[in-house]
């Protein structure tokens, strides 16, 4: 029971991070391997505002979101737009995007190392016990989960019911046909990419309330987010959420029962199983 709830709490935050990557990969068609660094940057911002000004991480989110949005929009326009233009096929774009975002991820790790040093950073915020279902939980975990649910829910409603959300889903499904019905694919792709980065950075600010981060942990989160996105089905919102909760459960289970050092290995095994038996993802449609 403890494992179940801890796992779900962790999975909720993972869902937020993976949702960010899904917007970037599923909708904007950019495999962004610098996604984890955006998360760490969000965490750094929360840490910095808390230690310097006692500003609650949950308020910092409101600051991190627009800043990360602008930053990712710029990254898309400056670095990725030329690649989209020059790519002859989707495969070519993927290779170029992977190499570029790798470069970007190294650059951002390097910058964060230069500014903040290589130490682990953590702070204690809301680390008071909460009683739920007969057990005790850290209030920060519960609050982060709540915030993640709110953001995920808002995002899902926006994608499903607003006009802009529908356009973004349209470019995810059929970028070529979307142009025929008058959608500015380039603009919407940039928007989706920026939004994805903003969501991930907010997830980072939330996750930093209960996890210890350092400048080079980004790639671990990128990997986990990728596993979640592929498990749920690329471009699928519901699938992402279910997959994130599953991964949260599995990780917590492995960490408590076997060894905390094996969490990534567990995620990886799950990935192998998915690739072997359902490569299109739990909720994905089989390519025709």
């Amino acid at each position, binding site marked *: 029971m403890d494992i179940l709830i801890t796992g779900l709490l962790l999975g909720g935050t993972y869902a937020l991070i993976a949702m960010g990557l899904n917007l970037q990969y599923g909708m904007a068609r950019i495999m962004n391997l610098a996604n984890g660094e955006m998360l760490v940057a969000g965490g750094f911002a929360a840490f910095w505002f808390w230690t310097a000004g006692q500003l609650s991480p949950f308020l910092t989110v409101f600051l991190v979101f627009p800043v990360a949005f602008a930053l990712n929009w710029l990254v898309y326009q400056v670095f990725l737009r030329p690649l989209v233009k020059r790519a002859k096929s989707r495969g070519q774009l993927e290779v170029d995007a*992977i190499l570029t975002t790798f470069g970007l991820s190294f650059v951002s790790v390097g910058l964060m190392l230069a500014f903040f040093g290589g130490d682990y950073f953590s702070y204690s915020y809301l680390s008071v016990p909460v009683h739920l279902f007969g057990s005790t939980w850290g209030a920060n975990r519960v609050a982060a989960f709540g915030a993640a649910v709110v953001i995920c829910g808002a995002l899902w409603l926006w994608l499903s019911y607003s006009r802009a959300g529908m356009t973004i889903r349209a470019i995810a499904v059929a970028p070529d046909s979307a142009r025929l019905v008058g959608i500015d694919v380039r603009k919407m792709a940039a928007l989706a990419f920026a939004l994805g980065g903003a969501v991930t950075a907010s997830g980072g600010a939330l996750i930093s309330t209960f996890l210890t981060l350092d400048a080079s942990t980004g790639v671990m989160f990128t990997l986990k987010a990728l596993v979640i996105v592929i498990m749920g089905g690329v471009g699928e919102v519901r699938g992402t959420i279910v997959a994130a909760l599953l991964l949260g459960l599995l990780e917590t289970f492995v960490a408590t029962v076997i060894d905390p050092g094996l969490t990534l290995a567990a995620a990886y095994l799950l990935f192998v199983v998915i690739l072997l038996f359902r490569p299109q993802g739990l909720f994905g449609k089989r390519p025709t």
Partner: protein
Amino acid sequence: MSLTATDWRNLSLSALALLAAACLPWVVGNYHLTIGVTIAMYAVLATSWALFSGPTHYISLATAAFFGVGAYVTGIGLQHLPYWVLLPLAGLIGAVMAALVGLATLRLSGVYFVIFTLGLAEFVRQIITWGQNVSGTKGLYVLTSITERDIYWQLLGLAALVWALGWLIGRSRLGFALRIIGDDETVAKHSGINTARAKILLFMVPGAVAAITGAVLAPRYVYIEPALAFTPMLSFQVVIMALLGGTGRLWGPLVGVIPFTFLWEAISISFPNQTTLLLGVAFLLIVYFLPRGFVGLIEDARRRMGSEGAR
């Protein structure tokens, strides 16, 4: 297969160059021999990497995983088996691992493969660390009488093997099939090529070679532990060197390895804290300004000179 005059000329030139390189330990001091070993190591890794990733455009980030496994084969096996058995054994294990990775991912699109290989080194590292925790050991001492010189010659021999293999594959049906896959995978499928099988077979080459390289280099480290043997930096450096040189030609990666090793040596001495940042910048520069590497530059220059000569 018949060899043309140009083939014979290229082959004898390569053999001469290798012989010249083999004389290095008698000519230079210890410091330069160390750099020589580094260059030989990256030349082997980058060339074998490009054998697979060049024609198929599948970016493999698994070099560190194979390398680390190879190092552990030497580290553990040295107490039980004679040294000369270990290198082929490492190669075999590397090839089997590569085949398994290939079976899981190479039937799907390239992105899955990249992600999978990105995590592979970390996955193996976590498993080995866990195994050590359970068995209560920490690192491994690799104490041998193998000198830097022996390592250098072994690597040079391995490099010769990789080049010969690459040359043979390039002339074979498999090489031809891979070039078609790289151009257009759908066309390849429709012309009756078993694309997954071809890709898996070829991916076993860098897997085996990287594992053997790890096995050869283990004595150099003296003490190996998971964090050292599976350092992800290795995979990235191999990718960047191969891309810098250019993957279109067999000698391409070598053209990238030599300048990059010297550059990296200079960077690690002058800016030890900014290496990650500078590696990132190097990645970006190559993608935007040298998409085909030095090979592309050289070929463009040749073509220009050729067309001027014709006029």
